[in-house]
């Protein structure tokens, strides 16, 4: 009798968790909830002339293929430099699991798109946003760079901005996204929610660790 009651209790728990999950899933794919969360958690771009454009890393494959995010950020950085928003263009990105160095692949691309080699700075060792802020900070301070145009995706921007401001910079956000915050398809909204959840976990971790 007791086993039966205990089993029924657990059945009820799983059913409640499942019902909430299914409801949450339906709300995510069929309503603008993820778009609203995206708008709440992102910082709009504010492009103005600065001392340097800083393009954060976003991953590279073993075969040297830049990830979607990495490519978009690199293109945004190149466009900003070419529109004379800053004299220096910093690319960040290490080598991951035997891959070529992301920052160097992006620098090669930038040169091919007409960026002057002497304007390019690469940071090839930082593997986290925090390390990027510390190492790029150490690289830029001797160059008297104080105001930077920070290029990353809009969801990551608030965390990255906080770290670079803590490193002593005035940060102008210049977002480059591979997922639209206005996505209306079920798949797009699902990707958006996953992005929101992933970044929320990262922000909580950074706060708990005392980085922000």
């Amino acid at each position, binding site marked *: 009798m007791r086993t039966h009651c205990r089993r029924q209790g657990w059945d009820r728990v*799983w059913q409640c968790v499942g019902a909430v999950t299914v409801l949450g899933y339906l709300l995510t794919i069929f309503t603008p909830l993820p778009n609203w969360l995206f708008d709440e958690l992102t910082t709009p771009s504010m492009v103005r002339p600065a001392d340097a454009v800083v393009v954060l890393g976003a991953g590279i494959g073993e075969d040297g293929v830049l990830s979607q995010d990495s490519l978009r950020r690199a293109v945004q950085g190149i466009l900003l430099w070419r529109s004379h928003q800053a004299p220096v263009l910093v690319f960040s990105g290490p080598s991951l699991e035997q891959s070529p160095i992301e920052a160097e692949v992006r620098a090669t691309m930038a040169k091919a798109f007409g960026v002057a080699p002497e304007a390019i700075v690469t940071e090839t060792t930082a593997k986290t946003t925090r390390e990027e802020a510390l190492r790029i900070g150490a690289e830029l301070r001797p160059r008297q760079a104080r105001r930077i145009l920070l290029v990353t995706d809009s969801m990551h921007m608030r965390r990255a901005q906080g770290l670079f401001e803590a490193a002593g910079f005035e940060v102008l956000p210049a977002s480059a996204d591979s997922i639209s915050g206005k996505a209306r398809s079920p798949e797009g909204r699902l990707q958006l929610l996953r992005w929101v959840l992933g970044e929320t976990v990262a922000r909580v971790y950074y706060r708990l660790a005392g980085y922000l």
Partner: protein
Amino acid sequence: MAGTVVLALLVVTTGLAILCGAILGRLSIAALPRALGQLFECVGISCAFALLNLSLGVLGVLAVRAVLGAFVSLYYVNDSALIALSFLQGVLFYAWRVANRARTGR
């Protein structure tokens, strides 16, 4: 538009399946709420597996960083395949419970 298409497909195929089940398979409509409860149970167990996998993954990555000093990216845990695999784990665990109930009658 894509949402409407997906929703319409869902409604049509679910309706057809209920119709076929009731007419051809002689399934009772009265058993549908119970079936929905079992679906929720299965999803709930899968959700628990997903949380367990993600939590264990994050803790594992942080432990490797702290103990070995080696860098492992937290983004490795953020893999959509893990959600699908968690769902399979949930279905298996649910089926095991059902099979055990059928065998022992408890």
